[in-house]
């Protein structure tokens, strides 16, 4: 990499937000610079101010935020430009792509329109020329069959393709700098690898600088030239990517690098009783259809799957989004209607209705992925975690319930005082602990963990994994651990099932799967997750 001129430099940038509880400083005087043609990664956990830094640089802050300092782009301070001057730069010379491509595209316009419009506006081209240009862009981001795709609407495309379109839009005006704010976080690992490859290739072809905002250190190592590590609004460490990974200086960087969950789980003794068993489980969703709509489309989300969960065992179910892994978990808990045989202990629960399932619910618990959506925002934490007791132990007095809540919160490592507060006052990791406490207070036998760590920062993930392992050891729990994250699954599960499109592709003990994957799909997954080769070919 040849050191070239600095095109963007951020000096002493401070971002503060006015809130009811006084001003909150999200970014506390940071210095960052970007050279032409290089890839700079800004790494940090949620709340570190990494996104707000770039939002401030682009004047996209929320209305209660204000930025001070200097954001110098080729000699102009972006913070002091007027709106029309800013638009000369924003979207033209510096463009952005975001995490969620669905919400960044307008659902009412076709892809073609959304591409052509800004090209005409910014470059003053005619309709036909702009169309040609748009097609060229779609070919550039390797969208198959671009002619046809021009007429598609965002909802007709997959997440990866939408992100490609977003990249095409960002590239439309030949920018100097592309700011990518967690562009692959919402995507499956295999797609993620493709998108990053595409970005690396485009950079080589077009020579723009990329500012890459992410929480995922694994990607950074493979992608970036220089790295800034941010924490609580400050840059704690900066340097060449390799240097940071090989010899991190700051304790926080070391902690981040060591945050990968470690350890393995020993399988249960072979004579352990089978607690939950599914034989030929099938779940079919009807899509559309009805009186006038004609034949419904039948979608088989779970297709003839058999599974045996023993006491004290953790089965990891791995697959990409849409593979039916969550559906399987819910079907086994009889939260979704399904065909096939499901047994809990020695009882056949395949046909059990709501009423019949109720007494069993306390032994079969579920923990969700999103710790923000799974706790009712209007209830205190105490009310949330004791709700199950109202159903299953209605004789308990309010005081006894309170004591149980204290006990459960202690068990998951939270301050018992938390029970008088509301979920929105807690961080993601704390909320996930609350959700786990809600499941544990009922002393269940089987817990289905549906991506419990996916929405959390790496360092928090590790804590939650450790908490789950401790709870399992203490209470002889059986887990069904659903995840797309192979590193976490490896640390949690002693048996792995790989799913694709509702079917089991491969299953076996964890070590066997990791050391010697048989199915090609499993190999692809492994490669995408474990690979450490650089995307950058120029380095």
């Amino acid at each position, binding site marked *: 990499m040849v050191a070239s001129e600095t095109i963007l430099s951020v000096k002493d940038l401070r971002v503060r937000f006015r809130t009811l509880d006084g001003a909150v400083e999200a970014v506390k005087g940071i210095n960052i610079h970007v050279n032409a043609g290089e890839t700079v990664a800004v790494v940090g956990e949620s709340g570190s101010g990494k996104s707000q830094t770039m939002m401030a640089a682009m004047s996209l802050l929320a209305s209660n935020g204000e930025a001070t300092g200097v954001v110098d782009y080729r000699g102009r301070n972006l913070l002091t430009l007027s709106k029309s001057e800013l638009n000369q730069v924003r979207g033209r010379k510096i463009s952005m792509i975001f995490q969620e491509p669905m919400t960044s595209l307008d659902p009412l316009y076709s892809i073609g329109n959304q591409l052509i419009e800004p090209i005409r506006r910014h470059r003053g081209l005619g309709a036909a020329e702009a169309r040609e240009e748009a097609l060229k862009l779609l070919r550039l981001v390797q969208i198959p069959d671009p002619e046809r795709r021009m007429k598609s609407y965002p909802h007709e495309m997959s997440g990866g393709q939408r992100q490609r379109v977003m990249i095409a839009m960002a590239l439309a005006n030949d920018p100097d700098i592309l700011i990518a704010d967690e562009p692959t976080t919402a995507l499956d690992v295999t797609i993620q690898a493709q998108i990053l490859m595409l970005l690396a290739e485009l950079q080589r072809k077009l020579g723009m600088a990329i500012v890459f905002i992410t929480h995922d250190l694994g990607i950074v190592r493979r992608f970036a030239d220089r790295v800034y590590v941010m924490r609580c609004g400050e840059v704690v460490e900066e340097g060449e990517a390799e240097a940071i990974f090989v010899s991190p200086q700051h304790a926080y960087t070391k902690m981040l690098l060591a945050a990968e969950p470690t350890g393995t789980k020993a399988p249960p003794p072979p004579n352990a009783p089978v607690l939950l068993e599914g034989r030929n489980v099938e779940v079919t969703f009807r899509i559309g259809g009805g009186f006038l709509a004609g034949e419904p489309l039948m979608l088989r989300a779970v297709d003839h799957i058999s599974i045996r969960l023993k006491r004290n065992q953790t089965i990891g179910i791995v697959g990409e989004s849409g593979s039916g892994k969550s559906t399987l978990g819910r079907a086994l808990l009889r939260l979704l209607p399904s065909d096939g045989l499901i047994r809990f202990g020695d009882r056949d629960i395949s046909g059990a209705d709501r009423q019949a399932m109720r007494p069993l619910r306390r032994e079969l618990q579920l923990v969700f992925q999103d710790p923000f959506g799974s706790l*009712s925002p209007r209830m205190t934490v105490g009310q949330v975690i004791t709700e*199950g007791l109202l159903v*299953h132990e209605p004789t308990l007095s309010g005081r006894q319930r309170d004591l149980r809540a*204290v*006990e459960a919160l202690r068990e998951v490592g939270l301050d018992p005082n938390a029970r*008088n*507060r*509301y979920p*929105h006052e807690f961080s993601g990791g704390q909320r996930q602990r609350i959700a786990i406490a*809600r499941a544990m207070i009922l002393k269940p036998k089987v817990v289905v963990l549906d991506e419990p760590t996916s929405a959390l920062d790496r360092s928090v993930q590790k804590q939650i994994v450790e908490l789950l392992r401790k709870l399992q050891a203490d209470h002889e729990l059986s887990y069904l651990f659903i995840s797309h994250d192979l590193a976490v699954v490896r640390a949690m599960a002693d048996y792995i099932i790989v799913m694709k499109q509702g079917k089991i592709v491969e299953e076996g003990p964890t070590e066997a799967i990791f050391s010697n994957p048989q199915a090609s799909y499993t190999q692809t997954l492994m490669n995408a997750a474990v690979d450490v080769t650089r995307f950058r070919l120029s380095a």
Partner: protein
Amino acid sequence: MTDIAATAPAVVGRSLWGDAWARLKANRAAMFSLYYLAFIAVISVFGPSLVPHRYTTIYADYVRTPPSFSAYPKADKIETALNEAIKRMRVDIKKWRQEDNRIFVTVTSPKPIDDRSVRYLDRSDAFDDTKIESKSPDGLEAVMSASIRQQYFLFGTDNTGRDLLSRTLMAGRISLAIGLLAGVVAGVIGVLYGATAGFAGGKIDEVMMRIVDVLYSLPFIFFVIMLVVFFGRNFVLMFLAVGAVLWLDMARIVRGQALSIRRQEYVQAAEAMGVGQRGILIRHVIPNLLGPVVIYMTLLVPHVIILESFLSFLGLGVQEPMTSWGVLISTGAHNIGSANWLLLFPAFFLVSTLFALNFVGDGLRDALDPRDR
């Protein structure tokens, strides 16, 4: 373990409602409007009994008196009023004078003067407490004295000589009551209906919402006119008519909310825990619905007040001598050239109240749904 439980309430979290309240308090327009509404409500409820005039009392001498801070009768009107009253007595004025707040009048008559004729002076709206001070021996001449009845008409009087202040306050009482009651009626029906439809989902939801669609297609004014024709003009009917139409919007809003809450993970979590339908409805769906419902209610109340005014304006609403802002404005509009205060005062009250209600509604929306605008 017990010691923790004993010292528990040390940390009390701030609920979403607490948050919303704090945000509302920071909104000056909304807070001012809130105080203003409270003020209007208080004067509408207690005002009519504190104002010296009843809203039904007719002052025949003060028809269409313009508003004034000074007391009636004015100096030049005293003589006119006196002459009129004396004429009814069928006696002649010899002379009269005013001392402070009393007038002394000497009257003569060809026939002896009856003591009871003082009542003619009392009957006038201008005088009170009439006495015969002295009488000549032959009874043909007498000196009467009467105190001048000081009356204040801050808002003036209407076409039949009723005090506009007390009528405006009374009208406020009716308008606010209709607004609040019909709003609550519409709200309760709408929330129950919408929450049931949204929560039940599927076929039940389809049928319930089609019924709403059918009711939507009824023209509102025809509906009210029909009710009035069949059942006569009736105050309670007004509530029914207005409430029966307005719950439809509420039902739709609530149904949409209930549908989306139904799919939230915390509802699924409750189901996975074995919580029954009732528990989910009461503990999860309804509390999370309340935000939008409260917002819509504050916008529903002014809507109802306007509808009521509109119906009263058409003559289908509240009937005399009972009154509402709509009725008063209707009368005022007929007299806009000759007595504009009849329009100005009620219109000011109506408009400012609606303004305040809308500001509060806006403030609540921002407070309960603090997404950045």
